[in-house]
């Protein structure tokens, strides 16, 4: 029973309620400590010098003047981060991304760093570093980078995923093909075939908290890092490898995290801070500016996608294909592959083929961004789905329902689905009052679907019971948006005690076994599962203590509603022992009572969402305004519904921003033109309506409570939902994201011409 992951349809007492979050008070009073809020005695201020060039050979770096400046305690270049990666390709990429070696690969690539007694001195020192560059040709556009004569971004990269292995390097880092059946035959059998091409521009996660850390390393090889991260154990392992430190001697403490959305799953300047600290033998604080965040931390890919869908007049799709070109920045990634895997995941297709091309360009290393790669693919597919439905004169929702994947469908990326939520979300959309609400003048409505995998991973959890019966739950997955409340609910549920009796802490890497990051919507799924098992482990001990107290066999003891109860007639007189009583007696029954769990939480359920969007467009200026928005998504089981709704709303808002206004704009020199919140236009409060949510609960069969990840899927449908709404009101199919007013205006004019 202890580690049984199977879903059991049980009645919940705590799970599903909406209590206040345990970290709420700290966060409304300003005392919660985020990445930049930690200070150490004798700390220095670190600053990073970054390349102003998109692509340049670094001929020479002269740091001598900077080193001589009074107050400067350390200056480092790539020489201070020697290659210890031992042939590990990904790790070497990380190393080179942290600090340029022989070449600067994008505008914003770090080339040197200083640590000084204060910020003005550090700024002065940066100016004294002389870097001699030789400019190289660059490429920032994904389609340009695939052309035969394009400047080569990484001469060490040969295309993977093709056979035979290529003989010369290429900007195409990987080709990934998915699908089944015979698409050519399928297109032949179609009554109508629609082909469309799309482009999406690069978007950034845009977390409000810039990266920040405080590093302290001594000559004895021991070190500490306080950092804002989605995964402090991963940061520890990566940093230790890059700096040649022993894992156990580097303790990483995660601060509160001011948003991550995937952008804080990778190390960026943390190894630099550690290297500076090691060289100076002083603690070093390193905070990025917003400009640095945009120029040198992972945005998501810009893309170029071709879609082809064939359909019978009766509405059944006969074949579907897509070619998806995603840029990875200057280092190989898996982003096109993810696009190719997710593109048609919502549909039940006999013949489907997707090919992803991961392409290198002179832009920052792409990082995961909330359901990475899925929104762009969904934009292309879901826009085309509407076009196809229109071609055969079918309602787009009915068309989707007719072709939706269900239990037993062979997914477009391979495996066969278990119970899934796409059908139910579509049925809910069909019934939703939003779909029947009257539209005002100049308004249009669109809907679209989205998919994301979710996953589990390594998780380690402790549960300690205090002498007063209160419970300390110690977890190693970062709380990005209320997970401590959800995990406390789960512990309370399992133990049968009030939510208020549980205190959940996120602990440092020295206090718990390895935990994977909070990514892939795994935080509550995996730590939730691990919390259940840790609680059950503690319950076993509690039952043993009760048995010892009563001097009966533990086989006769069960845990029921927060109490140990003796089974059977012969024990009728034994009054159940509550957790409080057992805890109080624990000093004399064997000492502290604790539960522990160390698991690989596999079996995360896939997640689907359908969104509805109403948009208003100014007929003369093409100014847009989202006037109503509804998210319908399968959560498996909503542990704390407030924070599930919050995930739905937040993802939708990010998708809306991406759809309408957010984009990286590079000039002809490969320099980023808008590295700030002024011109990288994330939605402000007055841009958005209230975002309605409908939580569906189709239990995940592989989690005791039926939990699926909920964090990511909500960003997948908005791009297409807005594109479809714009098509409804303006009569044009937008094929370029963001669908900014100048682009809409242009499309309308071209349509009229």
């Amino acid at each position, binding site marked *: 029973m202890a580690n049984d992951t199977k879903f059991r349809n049980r009645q919940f007492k705590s799970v599903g309620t*909406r209590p*206040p*979050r345990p*970290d*709420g*008070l*700290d*966060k*409304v*009073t*300003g*005392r*919660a*400590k*985020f990445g*930049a*809020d930690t200070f150490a005695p004798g700390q220095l201020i670190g600053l990073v010098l970054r390349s102003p060039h998109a692509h340049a050979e670094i001929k020479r770096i002269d740091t001598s003047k900077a080193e001589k400046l009074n107050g400067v305690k350390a200056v480092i270049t790539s020489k201070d981060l020697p290659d210890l990666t031992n042939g590990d390709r990904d790790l070497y990429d990380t190393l080179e991304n942290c600090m340029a070696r022989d070449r600067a690969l994008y505008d914003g690539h770090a080339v040197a760093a200083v640590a000084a007694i204060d*910020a*003005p001195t550090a700024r002065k020192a940066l100016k004294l570093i002389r870097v001699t560059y030789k400019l190289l040709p660059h490429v920032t556009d994904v389609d340009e980078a695939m052309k035969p004569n394009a400047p080569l971004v990484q001469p060490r990269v040969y295309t993977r995923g093709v056979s035979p292995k290529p003989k010369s390097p290429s900007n195409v880092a990987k080709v990934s093909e998915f699908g089944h059946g015979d698409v050519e035959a399928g297109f032949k059998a179609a009554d109508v075939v629609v082909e469309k091409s799309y482009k999406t521009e690069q978007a950034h*996660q*845009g*977390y*409000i*908290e*810039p990266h920040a850390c405080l590093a302290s390393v001594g000559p004895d090889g021991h070190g500490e890092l306080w950092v804002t991260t989605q995964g402090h154990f991963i940061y520890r392992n990566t940093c230790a490898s890059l700096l040649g430190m022993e894992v156990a001697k580097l303790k990483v403490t995660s601060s*509160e*995290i*001011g*948003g*991550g*959305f995937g952008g804080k799953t990778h190390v960026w300047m943390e190894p630099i801070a550690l290297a500076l600290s090691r060289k100076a033998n002083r603690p070093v604080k390193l*905070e990025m*500016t*917003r400009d640095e965040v945009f120029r040198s931390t992972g945005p998501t890919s810009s893309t170029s996608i071709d879609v082809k869908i064939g359909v019978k007049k009766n509405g059944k799709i006969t074949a579907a294909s897509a070619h998806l070109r995603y840029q990875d920045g200057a280092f190989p990634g898996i982003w096109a592959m993810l696009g190719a895997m997710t593109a048609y995941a919502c549909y039940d297709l006999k013949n489907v083929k997707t090919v992803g091309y991961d392409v290198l360009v002179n832009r920052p290393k792409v990082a995961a961004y909330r359901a990475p790669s899925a929104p762009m693919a969904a934009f292309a597919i879901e826009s085309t789905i509407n076009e196809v439905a229109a071609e055969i004169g079918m309602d787009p929702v009915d068309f989707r329902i007719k072709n939706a994947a269900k239990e037993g469908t062979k997914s477009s990326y391979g495996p066969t689905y278990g119970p899934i939520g796409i059908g139910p979300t579509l049925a809910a959309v069909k019934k939703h009052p939003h779909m029947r609400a009257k539209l005002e003048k100049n308004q249009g409505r669109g809907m679209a679907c989205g998919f994301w995998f979710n996953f589990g991973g390594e998780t380690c959890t402790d549960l300690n019971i205090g002498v007063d019966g209160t419970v300390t739950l110690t977890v190693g997955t970062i709380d*990005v*948006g*209320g997970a401590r409340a959800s995990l406390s609910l789960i512990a309370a549920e399992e133990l049968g005690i009030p939510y208020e009796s549980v205190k959940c802490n996120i602990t440092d890497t020295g206090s718990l076994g390895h935990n994977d990051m909070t990514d892939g919507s795994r935080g509550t799924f995996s730590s939730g599962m691990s919390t259940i098992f840790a609680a059950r482990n503690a319950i076993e001990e509690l039952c043993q203590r009760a048995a010892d107290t009563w001097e009966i066999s533990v086989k006769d003891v069960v845990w029921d509603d927060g109490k140990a109860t003796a089974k059977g007639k012969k024990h009728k007189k034994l009054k159940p022992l509550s957790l409080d009583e057992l805890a109080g007696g624990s000093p004399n029954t064997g000492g502290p009572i604790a539960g522990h769990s160390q698991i690989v939480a596999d079996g995360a359920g896939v997640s689907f969402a359908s969104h509805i969007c109403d948009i208003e467009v100014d007929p003369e200026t093409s100014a847009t305004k989202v006037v109503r928005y509804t998210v319908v998504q399968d959560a498996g089981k909503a542990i704390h519904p*407030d*924070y599930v*709704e*919050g995930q739905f*709303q*937040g993802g*939708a*808002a*990010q998708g809306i921003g991406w759809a309408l206004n957010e984009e990286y704009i590079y000039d002809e020199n490969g320099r980023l033109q808008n590295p*700030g*919140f*002024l011109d990288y236009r*994330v*939605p*402000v*409060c*007055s841009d*958005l309506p*209230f*975002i309605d949510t409908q939580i569906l609960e189709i239990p995940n069969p592989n989690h005791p409570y039926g939990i699926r990840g909920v964090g990511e899927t909500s960003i997948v449908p908005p791009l297409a939902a807005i594109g479809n709404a714009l098509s409804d009101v303006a009569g044009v199919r937008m094929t370029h994201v963001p669908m900014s007013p100048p682009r809409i205006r242009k499309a309308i004019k071209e349509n009229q011409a």
Partner: protein
Amino acid sequence: MAGTFVSTKINGDQTEFVCQAGETLLEVLRNRLGLTGSKEGCGTGDCGACSVTLDGRLVCSCLVLGVEAQGRKVNTIEGLADGDALHPLQSNFIKHAALQCGICTPGFLIASKALLDRNPNPTDEEIRFALAGNLCRCTGYDKIVRAVKATAKDLRKK
């Protein structure tokens, strides 16, 4: 370089500090006075995470010099609660789950208070425009606007 001596009132407390002329009020609050509740999200007045009031007016402390605080009154998130009683905005932000990561929360609370001080009964649209200078990337603003509305209602009852 010699710093400048500044005498000011922060959250009602007489406070003295020495800072360089080029330091922002945000830097002074965070690095010299230990008041890290005000956050730097951009340093350019675009995100509102560093919002404080200066003589009662809402400002971005990243766009104010520390030396400008001389003889004036600064109020920060650390002074929003009244002793052990949270400000109704603070309670309602918790109650309505108006925060996820919480980095923008201090700025939103200060800006919301500035709004309710001058407009006790704002419409949804007035709330949204008054808070347009505060970016939140987690919530889609939905629960924030609801929490401010609920607070306005609570305060009107008093």
